[in-house]
């Protein structure tokens, strides 16, 4: 067993790109769990996707041994947290498992919107925050300015904040020391009934669900019968253990204060939901652990297999992803155009893209995603209220009394020279300006009330491009507000494609309709006949484009020397066709559905 006084459970929080994962790697290297040779950059970001995008999507945990300067040996449990605004909930789960957080701030960028959001979240969870100033090797580094910023803006003492470069490996030892000194040891009672918090999980095809837990009270070992308190389901523990980089390391037991995993041959992944409390069947805790919000997806869209035969595979894949991702929701739906698929709920557009990419990469599924939607409240003249997350269910306009849409409070932090651009962008997205605060001479925090449906499209990208990447964004749901919304339909060759319909504000309908028509004109390949693209509201056409017919599709030449190559060319052509969807006589490529999402109205 591990001496609880010597355990430190902590996470690293940072704004995206401030060096969180690099610092994690350096810590792993310094504590000797990995030699330099074994280091693959950013070990904790397991998924290819995470490495490519430079973001952490899932929480990852690792147990390290650290020998402090005074000779004391500590056990560190480092839990890496996701960094994007879409994943605030995952961050909160991780924070609950920790006593402290290392706050990484970029010495050249300073505090960003997510830095603040994460720090407040950490403080809400009563964590001890250890600030660290990173990237001091960069020419643009201003560590002293940033140190003052941390003190003034966040109100954290930062006089002894280590100045480090995770990339080059400067100052890491000081970070390790401060973790031991500043972050408190976990508390807990080994004798009390088991209370273990599930902060993540994944499906292992040999051991069943691997449940990531933080033990608050009691202990758990192999052979115990555990109970998930939200469902009341019982399982016999087959293995407990700790996390080593990339592997699981079985242990005799997990005790109060420790972080580790439980395997209990859990087959049905819905039985081990993240956020639940695990206790023992024979000696149950009276109450589950507090503080877990139920996850509220904010963005919805339909996901359909390109090949209808993949429907079952898609369902299985979604179940598997859901195991690791409590925020993903899905239920079956049917589209006239796309056949059988699922209506899925996400935290935001990035989350949607990530799930889509994981379905493609990890499960080899080719998918079509419909235009995302938020949840609207539709009040009918007969007094009924409809909760609408799918434009297909939009009722007859004559029966609608009024519609309400969700609003968010958006916080944008930016160098002051971009204020004009941001005002313009937010205005264009129906944002209502609330406030502007100077955090220092050159930087401001802007707050807006904005409709969520304006934020979910490509607001983040648009914001980045208008501020040369300097602005940062955070948002939270605030309220529902009446709004003049209409349903916009897209017709191809005279037929409505239900999967392309979406709900939009009346004033923006025309511009958006025109842009979508233009985009579709670019992505829909030419056919042997002309294809009209029309956008309409309740039967009234408000935009129209035409895809001209092609006149020829023929390889002019094919002799003995290039038969193989020409065959490959034709194969590619055929492959491309297969990936398209047939709507009446029109073949629509998947990009058509995606490009509709990526309309930057600032163009």
């Amino acid at each position, binding site marked *: 067993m591990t001496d609880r006084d010597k355990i430190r459970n902590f996470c690293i929080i940072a704004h995206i790109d401030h060096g969180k994962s690099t610092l994690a790697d350096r810590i792993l290297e310094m504590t000797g769990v990995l030699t330099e040779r074994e280091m693959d950059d950013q070990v904790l970001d397991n998924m290819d996707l995470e490495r490519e995008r430079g973001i952490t999507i899932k929480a990852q945990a690792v147990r390290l041994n650290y020998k402090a300067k005074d000779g004391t040996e500590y056990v560190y449990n480092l839990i890496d947290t996701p960094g994007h605004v879409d994943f605030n909930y995952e961050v909160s789960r991780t924070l609950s498992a920790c006593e402290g957080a290392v706050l990484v701030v970029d010495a050249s960028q300073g505090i960003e919107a997510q830095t603040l959001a994460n720090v407040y979240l950490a403080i809400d969870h009563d964590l001890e925050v250890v600030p660290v100033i990173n990237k001091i090797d960069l020419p643009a580094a201003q560590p002293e300015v940033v140190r003052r910023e941390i003190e003034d803006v966040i109100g954290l003492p930062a006089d002894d904040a280590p100045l480090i470069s995770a990339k080059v490996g400067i100052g890491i030892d000081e970070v390790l020391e401060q973790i031991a000194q500043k972050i408190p040891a976990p508390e807990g009672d080994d004798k009390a009934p088991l209370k273990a918090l599930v902060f993540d999980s994944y499906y292992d095809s040999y051991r069943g669900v691997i449940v990531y837990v933080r033990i608050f009270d009691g202990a758990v070992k192999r052979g115990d019968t555990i109970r998930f308190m939200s469902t009341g389901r019982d399982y016999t523990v087959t293995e407990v253990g700790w996390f080593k980089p990339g592997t699981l390391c079985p242990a005799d037991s997990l005790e109060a204060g420790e972080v580790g995993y439980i395997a209990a041959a859990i087959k049905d992944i819905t039985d081990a939901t993240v956020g639940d409390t695990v206790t023992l069947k024979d000696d149950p805790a009276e109450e589950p652990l507090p503080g877990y919000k139920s996850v509220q997806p904010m963005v919805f869209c339909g996901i359909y297999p390109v090949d209808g035969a993949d429907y079952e595979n898609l369902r299985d894949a979604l179940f598997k992803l859901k195991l690791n991702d409590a925020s993903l929701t899905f239920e079956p739906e049917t589209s006239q155009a796309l056949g059988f698929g699922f209506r899925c709920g996400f935290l935001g557009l990035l989350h949607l893209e990530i799930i889509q990419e994981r379905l493609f990469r990890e499960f080899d599924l080719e998918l079509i995603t419909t235009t995302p939607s938020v949840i609207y409240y539709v009040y009918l003249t007969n007094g009924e209220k409809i909760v609408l997350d799918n434009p297909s269910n939009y009722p007859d306009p004559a029966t609608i009394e009024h519609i309400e849409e969700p609003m968010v409070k958006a916080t944008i932090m930016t160098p002051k020279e971009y204020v004009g651009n941001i005002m313009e962008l937010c205005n264009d997205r129906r944002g209502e300006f609330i406030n502007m605060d100077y955090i220092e001479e050159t930087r401001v925090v802007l707050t807006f009330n904005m409709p969520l449906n304006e934020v979910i499209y490509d607001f983040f990208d648009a914001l980045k491009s208008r501020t040369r990447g300097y602005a940062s964004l955070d948002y939270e749901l605030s309220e529902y507000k009446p709004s003049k919304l209409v349903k916009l339909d897209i017709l191809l060759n005279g037929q409505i494609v239900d999967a392309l319909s979406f709900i939009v504000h009346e004033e923006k309908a025309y511009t958006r309709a025109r842009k979508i028509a233009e985009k579709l004109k670019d992505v829909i390949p030419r056919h*042997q006949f002309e294809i009209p693209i029309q956008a309409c509201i309740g039967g009234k056409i408000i935009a129209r484009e035409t895809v001209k017919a092609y006149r020829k599709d023929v390889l*002019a030449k*094919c002799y*003995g*020397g290039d038969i*193989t190559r020409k065959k490959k060319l034709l*194969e590619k*052509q055929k492959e491309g*066709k297969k990936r398209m969807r047939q709507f009446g006589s029109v073949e629509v490529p998947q990009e058509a559905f995606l490009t509709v999402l990526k309309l930057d109205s600032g163009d």
Partner: protein
Amino acid sequence: METLLPGLYVHIPFCVKKCNYCDFYSLGISECVNAFGEGVYRDYVDALKREIAELRQCRGNGACGFGGTVIPEKIDSVYIGGGTPSILPPDLICELLDELRDGFVIAPDAEITIECNPGTLSENKLIDYKKAGINRLSIGVQSLNDSLLGFLGRIHDSKKALETIKLARTYFDNVNLDFISGVPGLIGKSRPQSLSDIERAIDAVAENGIPHVSYYSLITEEGTPLYDWREKGLLEDMDEGLERESYYLIKRRLNDAGYGQYEISNFALPGYESRHNLKYWSGAEYVGIGAGAVSFLRHHGGEKYVRYSNRKSVADHIDAGSFNDIRTVEELLDVIDRKKEFMMLGFRKLTGPDREIYSKLFNGADIELDFGTELQRLRSEGLIGNDLSLTAKGLDFANEIFTAFI
């Protein structure tokens, strides 16, 4: 109809200068002499002779060819292509053909073609070709408009082309002219091809009694200057409508002058269809000799076929010890692959894939039974006729037909 005898293809990868649209394996003369010295033609032809001798010996020993292939013996067509084979001194061509006659049994009435271009042909060469047994010329004229010839990067002008055509006809009855349609413009430099350019070309064909014409719609291949120009936005593309009008004009004018269209881009007076090229579209075997040449041969096991290629390297060819060392299998085709390929290539011909040849090649199998579903669909789409012929629509959208058999 019997199945066709195999053909022989010899690749001569040398040109005076590479054309702007050409992606065949070929080296410009100056780069070539720089790299290999003046004796390169001699060395290369010697290598070809060794390659032919190696095939002969191999067959003589009862051994298999590369990839387990059966090296054929009886041949009734030879095609010397390039590159620009007419760049070689004619005595080397003569030696090459002698070696081929040594290595294979070439039918007395075999079609023996050499590709040439107006810039490298002379009366003496024509006389020597004739003596060497060549009976068909294929001349790369491409256009009779000097501005287009310049754009395409040809080394000749229209005057030279017309002279060459006349000269060729005085020595050879069977002459093919290659032309290109659908030529774009180079912004600020040259205009896209006009219909009158095509009229002029066809007039020259008819006036000179040329029995065979290949009229290719230009393809922009990666790795060519043309491709780079397109990427850089320097081209004024030909309107697709005009491109098709050009094609229809070519078909109409040639048909009126008595030429039958027998393939998507090929036209001939009756009896002058290219025997060698028809083999590619009719499932026949061919032996490829020279750098970059491709062979398609029966596997010794009987049912499978192998398509293999020689490395695209003059240097490796000249240095090769055994030529098998510089060969790679491109495809190993089982019966189903072969059947599909037979269909795909067969539909390049106006008459479509040949049912009798199919039946002979595939043990009595019937096209209509094997591909009933596909053929029915293509017929209902109006791409092919009941007799498997290509319709006018099928000619415009032939890829739709080809992909049915991919």
